[in-house]
């Protein structure tokens, strides 16, 4: 097995050549040095570098940064929103429990677009995160803080959540590996909902090995999440061992259509040659229903969001105003007007609209039908292919502020990522090249619960490309 970053790091920690306390101290230093530039974290866990681990479990004491929409007992969890400022959950999310149990050291809560609504991390109430490759550019989003923290070496592993591309987009923009699991593989208990039927928590790492490792730690059935699926346990690291001889890959025409930057497409094409040289066969394939994915995605996501975000009324947690001599409905109005940002308000209003009497059938029900068509389209194609490939993002990381005025143009950026969420499939984004010193991500989509397949494909490509990416702003240990 090729010694990529995470594997090397683990070997040094296990052999004692990099003692755990020294490793953690260097991580704390990296955060102190880089945070003023990058703003990857909303909250850093005080004294994480002093963690003592009795017996090294699966994660060997590696640092894990957690997106700030995942609950951790007693640690402020804001979702990037003023409305949750001061909220300290009374419980650990299932994934947090599993990371602790597997001896991961949690470094902090990472920056994100407010309630995960966005693809740039500019919509955070706590300021934007900057891209470690070029601090004038966005890191992608909504898990931009997690991807930037991993790319810069502030943390070696991170958790993101992916509702319509929120792991794959920042992984692509920051040049790291991010995986969105099959719907139901990872427990959502403790993930603060944006759009419940679409989202999954997933790993972000510097390499495929790190992704496989963290996925192994967090995946598995959880009786507290009724949508989690009871399946047998897998160690995804074993998926990486074998080659790609005889693999059948499909290049989805709709993912490489209009609006994809020429420089991005040529990077993808190079990867295609690489796959062929590794013994795989690559063919073009079409899934026509994908063209309707974007509107269907936004209708379903906003509808669910409008209901999910109703609970933020300033009564039980987070923001609160002086409530005396107030009618409750006016109090709610005040809290919500002040607490939510512009993009969140936009999605709540649109979501309430598509669920209203008279519009429900026209929008919501129609979107569900499109969703079914897309699922069928993918299922059909997976009869002939082991995995599908395309770009993660149609464009390169753009400048902060460049697109924020135009929500539609921003929504268009999700065109390659949302079909996977509508279908509930797993997909991974891995770096496949640099253009003008900016990373490009390749997306590999697998069939249901075939995380092992896409990890194996990604691992082989990673080894073949051997990019050894190192952003301008980074502090790495090995």
């Amino acid at each position, binding site marked *: 097995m090729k010694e990529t970053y995470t594997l090397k790091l683990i070997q040094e920690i296990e052999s004692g050549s990099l003692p755990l306390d020294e490793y953690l101290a260097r991580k704390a230093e990296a955060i102190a040095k880089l945070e003023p530039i990058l703003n990857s974290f909303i909250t850093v866990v005080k004294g994480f570098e002093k963690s003592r681990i009795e017996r090294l479990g699966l994660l060997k004491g590696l640092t894990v940064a957690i997106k700030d929409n995942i609950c951790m007992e007693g640690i402020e969890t804001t979702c990037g929103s003023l409305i949750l400022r001061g909220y300290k*959950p009374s419980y650990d999310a299932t994934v947090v429990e599993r990371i602790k149990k597997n001896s991961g050291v949690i470094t902090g809560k990472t920056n994100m677009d407010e309630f995960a609504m966005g693809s740039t991390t500019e919509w955070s109430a706590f300021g934007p995160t900057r891209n470690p490759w070029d601090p004038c550019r966005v890191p992608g989003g909504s898990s931009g803080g997690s991807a930037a923290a991993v790319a810069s070496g502030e943390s070696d592993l991170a958790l993101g959540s992916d509702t319509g591309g929120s792991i794959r987009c920042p992984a692509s923009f920051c040049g790291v590996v991010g995986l969105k699991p099959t719907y139901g593989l990872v427990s959502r208990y403790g993930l603060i909902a944006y759009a419940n039927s679409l989202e999954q928590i997933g790993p972000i790492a510097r390499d495929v090995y790190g992704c496989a490792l963290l996925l192994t730690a967090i995946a598995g059935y959880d009786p507290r999440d009724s949508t989690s699926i009871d399946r047998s346990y897998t160690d995804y690291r074993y998926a990486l061992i074998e080659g790609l001889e005889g693999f059948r890959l499909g290049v989805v025409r709709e993912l490489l259509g209009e609006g994809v930057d020429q420089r991005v497409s040529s990077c993808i094409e190079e990867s295609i040659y690489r796959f062929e040289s590794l013994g795989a066969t690559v063919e073009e394939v079409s899934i026509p229903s994908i063209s309707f994915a974007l509107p269907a995605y936004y209708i379903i996501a906003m509808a669910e969001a409008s209901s999910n975000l109703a609970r933020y009324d300033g009564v039980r947690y987070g923001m609160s105003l002086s409530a005396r001599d*107030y009618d409750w*409905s006016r109090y709610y109005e005040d809290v919500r007007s002040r607490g939510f940002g512009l993009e969140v308000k936009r999605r709540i209003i649109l979501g309430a609209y598509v669920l209203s009497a008279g519009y429900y059938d026209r929008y919501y029900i129609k979107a569900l039908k499109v969703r079914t068509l897309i699922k069928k389209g993918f299922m059909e194609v997976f009869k002939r292919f082991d995995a599908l490939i395309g770009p993660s993002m149609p464009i390169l990381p753009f400048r902060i502020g460049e697109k924020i005025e135009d929500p539609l143009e921003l929504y268009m950026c999700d065109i390659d990522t949302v079909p996977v969420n509508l279908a509930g499939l797993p997909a991974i984004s891995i770096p496949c090249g640099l253009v003008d010193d900016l990373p490009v991500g390749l997306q590999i989509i697998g069939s249901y619960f075939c995380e092992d397949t896409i990890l194996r494909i990604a691992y082989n490509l990673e080894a073949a490309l051997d990019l050894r990416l190192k952003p301008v702003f980074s502090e790495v240990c090995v």
Partner: protein
Amino acid sequence: MSELKPIIGLEVHCQLTNLRSKLFCSCSADYRGKPPNTNICPVCIGEPGSLPVLNREALISVLKVAIALKADISRFTYFSRKNYFYPDLPKNFQISQYDGAGGIPIARGGSIDIGGRIVRIRRIQLEEDPGRIVYEGTITSSTGLLMDYNRSGIALVEIVTEPDITSPREARVFLEKLRSLLEYIGVFDGSLEGAMRCDANISIPGGGRVEIKNISSFHDVEKALSFELARQKQRMVRGLGVIRETRHWDPRRRITVSLRVKEEEQDYRYFPEPDLPPIIVTDALIEEAERSMPILPYEKIDLYVSKYGLSRGLAEILVSSKDLSELYDKIVECYGKPGRVASWLIEDLLPLLDKLGVGVKDSKAKPEDIAYLLKSIDEGLIDRSRALSMLRSMVLEGSRPVIVFEHSLESRISLVELDRIISEVVEAEGKAFQDAIRNPKALNYLVGLVVKRCGGRADPREVYKLLSKKVREYRRSRR
């Protein structure tokens, strides 16, 4: 204008009080009497990131309700979110089931017989109870709302009727029948405060439909509907018409107050709950519910009539309460004589319990002891009034019936002595004796005196017999 017969439909919410935990979390279902906000968890106060998990027992219980009401169970059903803002709703939506066109409740159809008339059931569904608003001071002087979420997430079954009810009294009878049925199948305890609540729709010919909310007991349902019926009739008589609106029942002032006019009807923006997969109701689930079904009231009435030969009226009284009919069954099991037991229960035991203000369930008297007491009465070992006072302490203190063999050989008065006492009494009470000759009922007075003179050593029946004989002799001698 009494020809303005109302059309009434009810929407009844009953807590599934048999459950151990809430509908979607593991908090205790027994929330009453606990300090505010101590029976809560992330799920039932809607903490961010928490997720609901359906309580399987709740599903079984609601299937039992459907079976008891003879409703059609949906093999595929799902929860929906009912979105509206209200302080008692921690998520600002309620997990419920969509009640509009295309919605699939857990069961549809079914009916309840309310004494010869059938009230059809439209829909049976499952939903979560909101928390409770507590006012500081009184509602009007209160400066703020306090919230208690202990009740939040309790399982409610909602039962909606067709508009088949034609009077406020029938509405009450319907609720009483429903309560008894739910108690029979062991999913509900109507004695718990606030366990059954109801909204009612009422209209009279020519008027708009009025929905009355917040009827919190089934005693109030008749009062609220009677008030509303009178109000609507008044308006029709005065030519004012009745507008379609929602009104609130104020149990203190005993009136309904306008809440909102229907034009501004709320849009709840229902959509399927994404955190709970649809429910597939399998044969195995239905069989499980059926296995735990007891014999139902209507089946029991038929049984009492056909097997025990009771009148239908008597059978209905016994079956009106689950506790009463269970007690009846147990006494009959010990003593037999179902007819005698039935009439004794209704004539003696129930009035006594009523007088004492004790429910059948709260009585401490054991069925086998009651059977023994009744047997002793029937064998003349104890008279009725002594039996009743003994029954009283059995009910209140759980004491065992002690039948002193007043007429045992050792203590029984000799016939000679008895005869002497009777003669003495007759002589002393000449007027009473004359009365008794004209009116046999007056004889009891003399019997009482004799028994008293004997110090309880005489058998009243024997005294009665002897006295009657004396009366007959006297009559004969006069002839």
